[in-house]
């Protein structure tokens, strides 16, 4: 087992090496000086462009001191020392090789993968590649990057990029990745903002994981999903199935669009200033399924189930979907023309109308419907109403009311709630009371077809960073990195137990290295099982186990694939032989 001094020895050797192999790198690093945090893609080490950078050289000065302090909580020196030990003893290089090699069925799959490092000096190095786990470990120990990113698999080893013409180096494959960042939820968060998170708003991530995990597995049939805490305020997902890795850019874009909620333009445009609101996924105007989608009651689960019941009668509908939707909507309006009171007594809920057989169900895509019934519906009360208290103050409820299409209803609710605020403390309504009231009122209103459902989707449906998922050559932070600002390890999250995941208590760099030190110092721990690994003595253990299960499943899939291929080959050969035999027989006759 290598000890501290060994480690230092390797390091000093490497520093010498650095002089020759990566001189530019070293020079850059010292020039860049300290840990300025502002921007990452500052300098890439990509070639000799000293002359170009000289243009602005005159104004180069060390960054403001507070910036440096903000970057890393522990002092830099200490952080880097701990990080080095972490890489030396805890970072699962061999497992990474198993993962990203995918059985190395395709020639040098691992070696063609792009790695990129952000060094403590804020130098950003792209297009690194490594032939083996040892190579990778060696280089990481040498550079001690504060952040490791994983990129695409290219047609040749990324480190050889400069040996070919610019067009000849292309990204071939990559995991389908998703990045969900809490800052995208800032307009609906009431507890924290920007980089901060708490257990309350983490619920948004839990909902996102639950919905996306199901959609990716059930809709798209992917099996090998690795969910990872991003170290601060978000989660990543690595879909590692072979089919996912081979997806084209268009396919990725389509999946992302599929997984983004369509919110009708009518509300988003009029209410959110000069920009379309988030996730208005379709811009061609033809896809406003959501506008016409079915109105139903979400306040109780029963109703959600009831809508699965089959309508009994049909109409002749050979027309296009759009017309169908139009007709349903029109019918609904026609029905609404009857006297309000009467209507409510006779047909209390619209889904019931449909059960009574007035036409086909309105469009509500199966995937959204499942998300709604299984997750959103339950979580809305808990997360949005209870924890975010989204109808708690006038400022907050104004945001919600802005999504109510009925303007008269909006102002009526606003006035009523405002009055209520002034009443005695025990009579003041809670967010949940207000929501119930609003739902009731919206059901009565003619204009609020499915505004309630729209609001729920708006608040809770996952918000993806589309660019990360779409571009093949986009980089994403590697799992098991340490977030330089929080010191937390980017550990995998078990989607089955994502509700129990607490981002605030994940293992930290200091924690795990400290625990390892303590454990290794205990005399009774000197004798260890041959198989026992260092991580088992730290809080990383359960996370690493989850990671290994993920790896095992990939390996099994690979094996199955190989077996099937072999069988198919054998069969083909057999058939060929058979055919040849018959041919020969024909000839002899």
């Amino acid at each position, binding site marked *: 087992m290598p000890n501290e001094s060994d480690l230092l020895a390797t390091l000093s050797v490497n520093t010498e090496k650095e002089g020759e192999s990566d001189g530019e790198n070293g020079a850059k690093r010292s020039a860049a000086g300290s840990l300025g945090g502002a921007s990452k893609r500052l*300098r890439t080490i990509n070639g000799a462009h000293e002359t170009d950078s000289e243009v602005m050289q005159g104004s180069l000065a060390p960054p403001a001191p507070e910036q440096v302090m903000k970057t890393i909580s522990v002092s830099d020196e200490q952080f880097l020392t701990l990080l080095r030990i972490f890489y030396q003893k805890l970072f699962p290089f061999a497992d990474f090789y198993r993962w990203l090699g995918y059985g190395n069925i395709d020639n040098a799959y691992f070696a063609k993968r792009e790695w990129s490092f952000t060094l403590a000096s804020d130098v950003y190095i792209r297009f690194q590649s490594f032939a083996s786990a040892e190579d990778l470990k060696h280089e990481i120990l040498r550079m001690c990057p504060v952040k490791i990113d994983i990129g695409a698999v290219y047609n040749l080893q990324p480190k050889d990029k400069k040996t070919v013409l610019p067009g000849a180096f292309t990204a071939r494959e990559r995991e389908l990745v998703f990045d969900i960042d809490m800052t995208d939820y800032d307009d609906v968060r009431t507890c924290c903002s920007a980089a901060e998170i708490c257990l309350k708003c983490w619920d948004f991530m839990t909902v996102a994981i639950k919905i996306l995990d199901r959609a990716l597995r059930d809709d798209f049939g992917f099996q090998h999903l690795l969910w990872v805490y991003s170290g601060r305020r978000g989660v990543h997902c690595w879909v590692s199935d072979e089919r996912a890795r081979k997806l084209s850019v268009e396919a990725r874009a389509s*999946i992302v669009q599929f997984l983004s909620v369509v919110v009708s333009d009518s509300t988003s445009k009029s209410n959110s200033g*000069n920009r379309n609101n988030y996730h208005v996924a379709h811009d061609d105007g033809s896809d406003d399924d959501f506008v016409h989608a079915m109105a139903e009651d979400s306040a109780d689960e029963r109703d959600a189930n009831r809508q699965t019941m089959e309508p009994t009668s049909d109409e002749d509908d050979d027309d296009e979907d759009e017309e169908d939707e139009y007709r349903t909507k029109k019918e609904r309006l026609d029905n609404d023309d009857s006297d309000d009171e009467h209507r409510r007594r006779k047909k209390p809920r619209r889904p019931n109308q449909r059960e009574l057989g007035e036409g086909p169900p309105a*469009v509500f895509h199966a995937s959204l419907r499942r998300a709604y019934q299984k997750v959103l519906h339950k979580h809305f009360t808990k997360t949005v109403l209870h924890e975010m208290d989204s109808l708690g103050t006038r400022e907050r409820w104004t945001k919600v009311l802005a999504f109510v299409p009925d303007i008269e209803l909006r102002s009526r609710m606003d006035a009523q709630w405002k009055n209520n605020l002034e009443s005695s403390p025990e009579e003041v309504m809670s967010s949940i009371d207000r929501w119930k009231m609003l739902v009731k009122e919206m059901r009565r209103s003619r204009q609020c077809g499915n505004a309630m459902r729209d609001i729920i989707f708006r608040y809770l449906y996952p918000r993806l960073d589309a660019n990360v998922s779409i571009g093949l050559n986009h980089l994403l932070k590697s799992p098991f990195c340490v977030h330089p600002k929080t010191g937390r390890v980017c550990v995998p999250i078990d989607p089955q137990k994502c509700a129990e995941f607490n981002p605030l208590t994940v293992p930290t760099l200091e924690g795990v290295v400290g625990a390892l030190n303590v454990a290794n110092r205990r005399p009774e721990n000197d004798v260890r099982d041959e198989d026992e690994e260092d991580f088992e003595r730290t809080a990383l253990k359960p996370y690493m186990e989850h990671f290994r299960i993920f790896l095992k499943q990939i390996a099994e899939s690979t094996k199955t694939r190989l077996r099937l291929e072999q069988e198919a080959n054998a069969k083909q050969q057999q058939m060929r032989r058979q055919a040849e035999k018959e041919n020969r027989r024909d000839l002899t006759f």
Partner: protein
Amino acid sequence: MLKQNRHLTASATNAHEVTRHNDPRLGPYPSSLNFYTVPPPYELTLMEFETYALDRLRVLKAVETAFLRAKKPDAVDRFIQTAHDEHMHLNRNVRINGVGAAKLYQERRKDHISHFILRLAYCRTPDLRRWLVKQETALFMYRFRQEEKAERTRFIQDLNLDMPVVSNAERASVATELRFTHGWSRERLENTTFYRVPFENVLRLVARQKVFVKHGWAYVPERDQPVLIANAFRSQLTAALEATAKAVPRMDEDDRLIPVLSSIAKQYLSNTYAPATEGHKDRVKHNEVDGLVGHFPPCMRNLHSALRRDAHLKHVARLQFGLFLKGIGMPLEEALIFWRTAFHRMTDDQFTKGYAYNVRYNYGLEGKRTNYTPYSCIKIITSNQPGPTDNHGCPFKEFSKNDLKLLMKSYGVEETAMTDIAKLTKDGHYQVACTRLYEATRGNAHRLANASLEKSKAEANAPLVQTVEHPNQWFDMSRISAAQSQPSRTKPKNLTPAAK
């Protein structure tokens, strides 16, 4: 020479050899539709070679314009029809007795040959390939729509595409999901045939949530079958073009065809905006930008005012605006000064660390070291969907109605043109809307520049043939027309292919 093509498309399986109750006189063309899996084995003269190619190119251009400018699907078809009937008339099988089999054969032969010539001409760069695939697919689908149902069905059968029909039992097992996805009654569902294909084959439907997917399989209803056909056509052609691109250098061609082919390929190129980087006489200095804003298209004006307002622009906005400035002739040194002074609220160090890289990147001095060209309208519209706090993108697409109105007012658009533009915008024809804005304001720009506007206005009033396809195209057109109304100034180099 075209015989050589035979080995270029390796995956060719002869779809036409399938026997069918058709007229033997039609030879390999039993249908007016063609998937072009087999290269044409004919000898032909250079003259034919060129005319066939140009005729098809005219049709494809018409297809492209139709989609850009026509408002409704039937208008698209009418638009295409005019050009199609003129240059590439194809009679359907029903007309066989009317016009004679020989004519049908000739037409289809020409269609076949011209398609393969364009493959040769347009296989070289990814851009060209993408363009050809897009237009050819649209053309094919146009013809598909025009053909009779029986012929279509027969054609599809012969193609033998891999799309298994979903069994009744399987359909019943996902009935609820299918019905909610499509909003269909039970009876309609039971009367609909579904095909089960990998979701990758119907990405458009997936993206729009117009199809039910389960475990990676998309359940495509009969009605959307054309999507499957179009997709098959597209992927087949894409693959064939890539194979051709690899084979062309090995083609061992003499000097007869290469010049023809490259001139054909340029026909397309001349219509996109290629910024004149070299020999650009009008170098734009950092302090001249504000004076040129009058010539900026709305997207750039918007970015410019955001920059002046916030003394900052976000990443994509910087790329979009920075490359535009580069396109109008701002050299790197000026660009660095321009951005430095524009971001006046930050320290030199912040700028150097965070932004100078970006500027140099745009000029191909950092990162990938590509000499980037200014973004085209298509790129601005389709990529990098802006978030709520972003300023980049196409205003026609991203602005709300009211903001757009304000914008148009700032350009001094008249009421009638304004409603017209608003309508175009609403229907998603952002570039056409932008073109209309240009047409509507061109006169005003002159009024500001020169009082003697009438003459040039008369010239300007000729309707624009070409849609605005590039922000820099707008800028150049605007500058040129301004210069024309100021005869004293030297005319800038003619940069408007659109004017032709």
